């Protein structure tokens, strides 16, 4: 459906790159993947050569010792197997080194991929983040990367070793008998051809599994996050039915995928063992003509085993590869989504001091949506306390987002001290202009940690006493010392995950103290005290007045007490600025503000 509220840019669900381009781009992002790859491949070749030691030993022992003219020669067998054993151990050591080297390089590369994707998620504009499910963003930096790591570590090694093993086995088989080699390849080629579409079906099936698992976890999360509502309305049974349906759908998808895998895998087994029968028959018939010895034929059987193992394995690895590429595409999709709000190459640092904000002909539309702001011109003088009022959905919050450059205007420009915001370096902008959003988000930790978050600390990282003093000071300056005093545990109180141990109003108090410590030149408050009681709100408003004396604030509020206290009131209606001026003047005008204020008075008295 088209979103009702804010339809933003959809994060690219996946990149549209082909498999090879995906791998190329993946390696480009994580060059560590190829660290020391040459030596690793050389070692892998040694490891693969080690695999043919046993078949060669079988051939030599049978032909030159056991079936030696004049009866078995046991001593020669001991010599041969001793040499073979040394070869095996060397190959094993090479194989261990290959594994370790691949793990080191792949983990380094994937850590890089994870970190870059994570950082990029934060760089994407607030619009993109809003519309994307957070769970799916998290999976981009967790399970999707894990899928790649599973492949690179397990599949990658096996694929490398398998390909080498097939090559070495083929070469050796050709040495023993080119006819049988052709026969083996002739039997396996159709399998390889048939397996490709089958593998595609397998990967489609796994895609369905992942989708259903996502939907199932969504349904399950409702039973946890919505626990209160479910109890209050007695809808446990219905919720359970919804979960059960999702669980069942996941189970069915898993079984369907497993059946497809079983068919693919067992057809590999069938072909492998059929080839065995073919080799025995054809080899014997060839041998009757004298072009084959028993030892060579037996070695061939062992070689077929070397050949079939990797081909069977390859069918599974290719599944992993497809999963990995799909995961890689999703992660690359994040990294390659252009961040709308970025630093221009010629961005300049904005010097600190009182901030003068101007909007010139600013229009804004959420991507794919109608305009929500129309040609807004505003001059917000330095040091002015500005209140923005208007009905829900009139565009107040959008205005706040543009002033803090969480989004760029579709038309027109926002200026900070005369410089277009797009040309101001983001680091200096965030230092000077800070937004306090309506929902005071808290990190898991103590009140003190949350308040200190984002502060340009003048104390050292491990100096908790200095930090606590600063935090207590911030609360005191906001007139909240008594609230802190009554809080069990004080500023050391654990706020729980996402601050859930505090009420919505208390979270806002912490968020306000946090913004205060961030010490910005310009504070944008988006209904930052909507959930606190009137007495506290008034107290905070007074405190903020003192604290922000000499600095500018832009406050979005639907309580008009804020407007009464402001130097300048901006009235927004349906995306247009309809009135601008001091409270008293607007009150005297026969406009929407006077009407709003009259209604507000009626509510408060």
């Amino acid at each position, binding site marked *: 459906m088209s979103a009702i509220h804010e339809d933003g840019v959809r994060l690219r669900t996946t990149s549209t790159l082909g498999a090879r381009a995906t791998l190329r781009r993946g390696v480009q992002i994580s060059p560590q993947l190829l660290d020391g790859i040459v030596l690793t491949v050389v070692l892998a070749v040694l490891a693969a050569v080690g695999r043919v030691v046993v078949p060669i030993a079988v051939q030599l022992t049978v032909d030159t010792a056991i079936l030696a003219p004049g009866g078995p020669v046991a001593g020669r067998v001991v010599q041969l197997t001793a040499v073979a054993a040394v070869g095996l151990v060397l190959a094993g050591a090479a194989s261990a080194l290959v594994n370790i080297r691949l793990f080191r390089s792949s983990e380094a590369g994937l850590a890089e991929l994870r970190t870059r994707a994570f950082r990029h998620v934060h760089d994407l504009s607030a619009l993109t983040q809003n519309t994307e499910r957070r769970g799916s963003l998290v999976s981009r930096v967790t399970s999707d990367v894990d899928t790649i790591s599973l492949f690179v570590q397990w599949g990658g090694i096996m694929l490398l070793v398998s390909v080498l093993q097939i090559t070495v086995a083929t070469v050796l088989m050709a040495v023993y008998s080119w006819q049988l080699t052709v026969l083996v390849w002739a039997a396996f080629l159709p399998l390889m051809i048939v397996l490709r579409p089958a593998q595609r079906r397998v990967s489609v099936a796994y895609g369905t599994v992942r989708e259903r698992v996502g939907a199932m976890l969504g349904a399950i999360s409702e039973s946890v996050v919505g626990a209160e509502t479910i109890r209050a*309305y007695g809808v446990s049974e219905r919720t359970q039915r919804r979960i059960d349906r999702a669980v069942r759908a996941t189970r069915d998808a898993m079984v369907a995928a497993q059946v497809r895998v079983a068919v693919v895998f067992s057809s590999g087994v069938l072909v492998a063992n059929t080839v065995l*029968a073919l080799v025995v*028959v054809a080899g014997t018939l060839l041998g009757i003509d004298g072009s084959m010895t028993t030892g060579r034929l037996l070695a061939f059987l062992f070689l077929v085993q070397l050949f079939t193992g990797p081909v069977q394995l390859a069918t599974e690895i290719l599944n992993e590869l497809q999963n990995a590429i799909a995961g890689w595409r999703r992660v690359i999709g994040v990294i390659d989504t252009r961040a709308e709000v970025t630093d221009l190459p010629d961005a300049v640092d904005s010097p600190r001091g009182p901030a003068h904000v101007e909007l010139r002909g600013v229009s804004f539309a959420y991507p794919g949506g109608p305009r929500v702001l129309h040609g807004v011109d505003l001059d917000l003088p330095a040091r002015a306390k500005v209140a923005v009022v208007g009905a829900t959905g009139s565009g107040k919050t959008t205005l706040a987002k543009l002033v803090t450059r969480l989004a760029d205007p579709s038309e027109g420009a926002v200026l900070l001290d005369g410089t277009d915001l797009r040309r101001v370096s983001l680091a200096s902008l965030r230092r000077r202009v800070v937004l306090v959003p309506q929902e005071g988000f808290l990190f898991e930790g103590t009140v003190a940690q949350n308040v200190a978050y984002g502060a340009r600390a003048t104390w050292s990282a491990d100096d908790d006493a200095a930090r606590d003093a600063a935090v207590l000071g911030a609360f005191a300056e906001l007139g909240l010392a008594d609230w802190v005093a009554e809080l069990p545990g004080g500023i050391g109180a654990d706020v729980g995950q996402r601050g859930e141990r505090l009420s919505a109003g208390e979270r806002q108090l912490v968020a306000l103290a946090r913004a205060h410590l961030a010490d910005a030149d310009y504070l944008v408050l988006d209904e930052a005290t909507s959930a606190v009681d009137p007495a506290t709100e008034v107290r905070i408003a007074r405190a903020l007045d003192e604290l922000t004396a000499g600095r500018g604030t832009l406050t979005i509020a639907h309580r008009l007490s804020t407007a009464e206290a402001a130097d300048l009131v901006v009235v927004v209606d349906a995306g247009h600025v309809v009135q601008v001026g001091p409270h008293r003047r607007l009150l005297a005008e026969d406009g929407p503000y006077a009407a709003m204020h009259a209604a507000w008075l009626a509510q408060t008295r």
Partner: protein
Amino acid sequence: MRARPDTTDRAALSGGAVRRSLQLIWRGMSSQPRTYVLAVVTSALFGAMTVAVSQVLGRATDDVVVPALAGELDDRRSVWLAGAALLGVAVTLALAVAGRRIFAGIGYSDIQADHRRAVTRQYLRLPLSWHRSHPTGQLLSNASADVEAATGVFNPLPFAIGVVAMMGVATVALLRVDVWIAVTALSVLPLAVLANLVFQRYMSPAATRAQQLRADVADVAHESFEAALLVKSLGTEQREAERFAARTQQLRAANVHVGTVRAVFDPVIELLPSLGTLLVLVVGAYRAAAGEVGTGGIVSAAYLLTLMAVPVRAFGWVLGELPRGLVGHDRIARVLDATGELEPGTHRLPASRGGLAVELRDVEVAVPGAGGPQRILHDVSLSVPAGRTVAVVGVTGAGKTTLVSLLSRLQDPASGTVLLDGVDVRDVHPQDLTRDVALVAQNAFLFEDTVRANVTLADEDDPHAPDDEAVWDALRLARVDGVVRALPEGLDAPLGERGANLSGGQRQRIAIARALVRRPRLLVLDDATSAVDPRVEQEILAGLRRQGVTGPTVVMVAYRMSSVLLADEVVHLHAGTVVDQGTHAELLARDPGYRDLATAYQEESERRGALVEEEAR
């Protein structure tokens, strides 16, 4: 509170690691008896057929290949017969492999589904206090990652069982060839199993740590992305990236450690069967020299070892999954064995339209805190006559939410009673409670469903579900009908995850419509209109009042004086107890704390007015 009725049937496993592992496996398998009988049979067939391949090959070597190549074979038909025998075994083997995998998959998927159903049933059964003491992330991972961990062992399990069968058959087959060759070949297998055990001993802690770190990385990402707006507004992207990178690097180190353990053990485990093959050749050569065994015997023994190289690893997989499985199972068991659901009452309230009378007597609510239980409410007594509207007013943190949550019995008081029409709320039948009492919480929770389903909370085919007319009425009363009408799909419009497609105020109004459509006798609004425009809020509350005598009793937590003025009475709550109860005018006159709250804006604007005038002078 009551204990689980079947205390003997606890989900938690008991005893040492071996005993608990066996319990885990047995419980899983016996929960799907049909599937696992089939899985075990096909696995055993797979084991037998794998040995059969080497046996047929050995026979073919002795009876066909060696004579033929020596030019001693008269009848070429025996060559084709040997081929046909091998082909027959091949087909059976392939079918057995398919069966083994399919039944293993079914068993694994079914056990997983059972666990998920059981865990979510507990989520829906356990009280809110239990939910509040368990982080959301943990509960979600109980149903996902922990269930996967607890069931991981069932994927390779049938394979491992097949390998047991394979070893049995192989022993018999090898003994028939030659005792010495058999002893040589079979000596390798215990070594391989031992190597796997040592491997697991090193691997398990490493893998557990990596798993834990993977969860930590996900937690950091989840929290950080949820804080996205804050991070952006404070410009702390770099700080967050560093926090995430630190965890990622720990995970990298842990994964490399896992990889190194595997890198060292993998070649050792693979080497053993190969060395065994060489050993069989040596022993076989001596036995052949002694004339005790033919080439075929040696070949089949050697070949058998190469065939068994991979299957023997299945033990390693099972053993490797077990420690993880036990940890996962323990976590699930903590959910499954949790008790303390509120005992449902049995008293039926008469079906009636009018409001419910509400009374609280000496109510105390406490939560466990760092320094012993902390009282959130104490000595709360109040009474609301049927059909009245009462506003609960108090400063942030006074205990308002806790107070109103008692009315729909989201929790029970530690002491004291809550009475609805004179009946202790603990005795009221849950169906009647949810029919008559509707609570709209501070944070409106919406399901990922349509508008209609979010209002009715019923399935489409539910005969008791309110009809569309009733839904529209409720939407109209909640002043959200215009929003819904503007949607192309109307009532069928999906609202997205947690109602993401709506604004905060719209979500609140849908939640109010959800309460109103039930025509409750007690409506509890916990600051349920905080994000709604004041004018709209007025309309909603005034609409409720117009329902007159058939209207519900309304208890609302409110901040706006306009809302408070619509109430017949005000309850002033402070620091967990009732300071005063009476009309707005009464409290204004006699309760200074209330006066501060009620006149905060007014006084503030007067103070400002005075300041401005002073400046003007």
